[in-house]
């Protein structure tokens, strides 16, 4: 009976936590810009929109899972899921049902409340960002003047969730994963912020709508190719996709912060990962690929939404492509890539853009400068890569325990033959 009451209290606190996080963020979205005009009606509207968005996102995630599995399969000469539904389209649904039916276990050493609140802290920010992302000029729930900044500020919150998930599991691997997640995600947040800042400078605004309108003739990927590359790589690391999935590396720390989670709570992490991937795709499409606009004149809203979604899926498929291509980095390689390559490059991008804007140089100088900056690490890598690889090989050779080659004992069959 006593344990029962404790469970009820914990459950109540979890629901309160969800409502608190969600409600706080929704209230903030509603209140930004006009705090005195926030009424219960506005909040109720936002809540309704949120439910619709949740349903849409759940569908998007299911298609993304299917797309990823099919694409990976094609790239590895397999066929991928085929059994459930046409072309295996219903496979993710079956997986979701399986996950929800599973028992939800919390380890005895975990601190229960945090263990169950942490997935929410990861998921809710990923999802609230969608309130501010425009699909076309007027197809947006809440267009903020500081949309770019809101995206950055809210997405940072999910790092706290990952760290807490690691700590509250009460397992060594999970704690290691949590520490890795904190180090990795904070490091890669800096290049993202700097490249987003570049876009804000180019468009002279921090509103997604204005940024897209500024790309009517020339998308920013043409003006600032290096910015897009830095944003894409850092974005990959930010959502923990494969070359950068160091904090949940199955073969090293058996899944990191997620190791103790099962059933529905693991499904929430899974959902959050795919929603975040889609967010990175959408933001890359808005900031660098021109969102719903294209160079050949205006499009009707529906076509604009389709174009925007097409660009988003393009980026997302690039993310899957990278996953099929590259092996996972080591943690030290990850940190040195972040701090020694991406952060300096992102600062160079900001400086180059500032110089071009301040001295009012012609626009074509910007891509030229951008590519010139990109050439620096490439040349350095080409010149140093060989030398470093040779030095490393020599070190390995010195440390290696030399085993004398033994003549292979012949098996009876071979001897008989």
């Amino acid at each position, binding site marked *: 009976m006593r344990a029962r009451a404790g469970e009820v209290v914990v459950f109540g606190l979890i629901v309160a936590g969800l409502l*608190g996080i969600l409600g*706080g963020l929704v*209230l*903030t979205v509603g*209140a*930004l*810009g006009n*705090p*005195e005009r*926030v*009424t*219960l009606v506005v909040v109720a509207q936002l809540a309704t929109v949120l439910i619709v968005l949740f349903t849409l996102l759940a569908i998007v995630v299911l298609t993304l899972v299917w797309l990823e599995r099919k694409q990976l399969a094609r790239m590895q000469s397999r066929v991928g899921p085929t059994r459930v539904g046409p072309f295996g389209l219903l496979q993710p649904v079956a997986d979701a049902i399986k996950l929800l039916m599973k028992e939800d276990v919390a380890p005895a050493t975990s601190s229960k409340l*945090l263990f169950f609140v942490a997935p929410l802290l990861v998921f809710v920010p990923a999802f609230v960002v969608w309130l501010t992302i425009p699909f076309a000029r007027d197809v947006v729930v809440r267009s903020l*003047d*500081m949309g770019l*900044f*809101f995206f*950055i*500020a*809210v997405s*940072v*919150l999910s*790092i*706290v969730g990952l*760290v*807490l998930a*690691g*700590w509250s599991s009460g397992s060594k691997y999970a*704690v290691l994963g*949590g*520490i890795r997640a*904190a*180090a990795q995600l*904070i490091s890669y*947040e800096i290049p993202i912020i700097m490249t987003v800042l570049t876009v804000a400078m180019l468009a002279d605004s*921090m509103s997604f709508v204005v940024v897209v309108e500024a790309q009517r003739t020339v998308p920013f990927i043409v003006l600032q190719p290096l910015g897009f590359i830095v944003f894409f790589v850092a974005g990959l690391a930010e959502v923990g996709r494969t070359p950068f999935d160091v904090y949940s590396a199955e073969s090293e720390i058996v899944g990191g912060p997620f190791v103790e989670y099962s059933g529905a709570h693991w499904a929430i992490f899974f959902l959050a990962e795919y929603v975040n991937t889609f967010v990175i795709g959408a933001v890359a499409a808005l900031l660098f690929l021109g969102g719903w606009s294209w160079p050949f004149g205006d499009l009707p809203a529906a076509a604009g939404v389709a174009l925007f979604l097409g660009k988003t899926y393009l980026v997302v498929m690039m993310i899957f492509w990278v996953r099929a291509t590259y092996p996972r980095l080591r943690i030290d390689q990850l940190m040195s890539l972040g701090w020694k390559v991406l952060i300096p490059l992102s600062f160079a991008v900001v400086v180059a853009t500032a110089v071009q804007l301040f001295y009012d140089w012609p626009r074509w100088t910007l891509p030229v400068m951008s590519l010139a900056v990109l050439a620096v690490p490439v040349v350095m890598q080409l010149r140093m890569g060989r030398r470093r690889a040779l030095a490393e090989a020599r070190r390995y050779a010195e440390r290696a325990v030399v085993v004398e080659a033994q003549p292979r004992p012949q098996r009876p069959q071979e001897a008989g033959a």
Partner: protein
Amino acid sequence: MGLAFFYIAGAVTLFGAIGVVVTRNVVYAALFLLVSLAGVAGTFVLLYAEFLALVQVLIYGGAIIIVILFGLMLTRTSEYEASGEHRRWPLAALVSIGLFALLAYAFLADSALYNSSTREAISVEELGRELFEQWAVPFEIASIVLIVALIGAVVIGRASPEEDEPEPGPGSAPR
């Protein structure tokens, strides 16, 4: 309605702040700090300081709380289990009450400043202009302070080359 939200934000801030002091577990304390800072961010939103609110979420909610948690996870938190019991708590209470009284006095004395009804959102553009034209020197000084702190952290955090060697005996010269 705005007033109701103000009370909600204030209640959240106070709840978090009290939680930080009351709880025995340092990780919970860090979390309560996050709740409290989120409440402050809400207050900023209500004061039309959107940029400040988002900065609050980004810097305090994100970076600082994560760094605190990072530190707690790397240290042996079990040693701080009893950190709620220390003998000098009356002094701490005195200091915080004094600070509160000072702030309350300051706000009440200048209450005319905070009561203006013509409050409007300040755009990021205005904020940037003000920051880099009117307040450029303080801004640069703040940047230098941060850079010094950053370099200091690198110097302290960097493993000294002698670290692998055995500890110097009592007779050796201080490094």
